[in-house]
């Protein structure tokens, strides 16, 4: 931290640095920063202090504006982000879905690990899809009645080309800077229709439409619940919030994922909910060469 700024109040420090930066931006620059006499004096001292450092002038003694700007940017970073606050800021950025994909911690949910073989994916496949996705979307409707950390979701897509080209779809629950992997599926156009122009959410819908089972809860009957508030029948003695609403032969395996929060005894907010016919999915994967 520059000694000129050390004793200044935080906002004053940031204002001085903002004004110094503004002076160095070439036209066209951005919105201007108002400067009073005291700030002008402080700015002059900031520039003097920075330029007394080695390496901010070239061999001819000319000021290297880019290096000076970088030094000011570094000072601004330090003035804005106190070390003790950085992880909190990072969590807020993460919850908004604005953190770079590479910065999220990946955690595999137990339900996913128990079914990973049936999904014909590996942990490495999933990490790759999240770290270097072809498409990635963070979702949480603003009007959804559940707090961000409990109901935010992230969908990552990784496209594989070639004759057996398909899309790997990964669905995660997002909690601050952690992505909890709920499930991952290989999605073939031959199974679900063209996905080339589809958004991650549309690919998930297409997949659930093809391999999902009908589910029922109270007034809801369908295959896919996505950020909906539903009236349920839990009040009448039911124990399971959802039931499969079609015939499933004995021994058939089902993968279900629900992120649900009770608003009151009757109304439930469902971030995501669907049930996949694992055997039908496995049959399709075998046809595509995945055992």
């Amino acid at each position: 931290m520059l000694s000129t700024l050390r004793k200044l109040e935080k906002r004053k420090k940031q204002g001085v640095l903002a004004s110094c930066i503004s002076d160095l931006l070439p036209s066209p620059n951005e919105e201007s920063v108002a400067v009073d006499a005291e700030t002008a004096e402080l700015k002059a001292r900031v520039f003097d202090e920075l330029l007394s450092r080695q390496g901010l002038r070239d061999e001819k003694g000319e000021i290297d504006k880019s290096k000076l700007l970088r030094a000011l940017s570094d000072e601004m970073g330090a003035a804005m982000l106190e070390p003790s606050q950085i992880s909190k800021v990072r969590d807020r950025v993460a919850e908004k879905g604005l953190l770079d994909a590479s910065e999220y911690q990946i955690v595999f949910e137990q339900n996913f690990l128990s079914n990973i073989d049936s999904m014909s994916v590996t942990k490495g496949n999933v990490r790759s899809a999240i770290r270097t996705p072809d498409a990635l979307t963070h979702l949480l409707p603003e009007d959804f009645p559940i707090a961000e950390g409990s109901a935010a979701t992230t969908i990552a897509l990784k496209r594989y080309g070639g004759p057996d080209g398909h899309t790997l779809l990964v669905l995660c629950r997002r909690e601050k800077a952690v992505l909890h992997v709920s499930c991952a599926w290989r999605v073939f156009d031959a199974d679900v229709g063209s996905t080339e122009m589809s958004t991650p959410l549309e690919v998930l819908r297409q997949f659930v439409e093809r391999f999902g089972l009908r589910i029922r809860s109270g007034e809801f009957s369908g295959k896919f619940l996505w950020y909906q508030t539903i009236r349920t029948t839990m009040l009448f003695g039911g124990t399971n919030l959802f039931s499969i609403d079609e015939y499933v032969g004995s021994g058939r395996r089902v993968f279900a994922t629900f992120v649900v929060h009770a608003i009151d005894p009757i109304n439930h907010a469902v971030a995501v909910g669907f049930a996949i016919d694992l055997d039908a999915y496995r049959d399709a994967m075998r046809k595509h060469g995945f055992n």
Partner: protein
Amino acid sequence: MPRPFLYSTNPFIKLIINERFRKDLHYVWCGEHFDSKKHGSYSSVALTAPSSDPCVIYKQLAEDVARGDQHSAKIVQMRASLEKLAVTWRNSGDITPDEAEEIVYMVKQAPFANWRPLVYVIPYSTVASRLQLVPIGQRASMGVEYILPDLARNEFDIIEL
């Protein structure tokens, strides 16, 4: 006679920041020509300075991003500009103190891909009444430049070359 389109080059991260923190209103500098070098040397368009030319900015930024240039003067400049804007917007009450911190965190941590350039293509007729002509003293050259302080996302298209 005005041209049918205006052009502005901005990094991807700036688009996201304006979208998420500024209610999808974008503060842009723009010009009537994408590439001033494509115009005759006796045209006033040729007076546009490289630092104001959307094509030059695009190429420079794209090259720095492709090379992963840790010392890119363009990226340093844009990063510093966004940090400064975070303070300005917070002081004017456009964003909260928390949001200003989040913007600074994002630009500090942004991977190179988030600095990739985008060209905003803005139909002149939709924004004509809000265009602010940059006074010649503030321009980098004699070329005509405009400021649009409140460009809505549905008023421009984005292309990547």
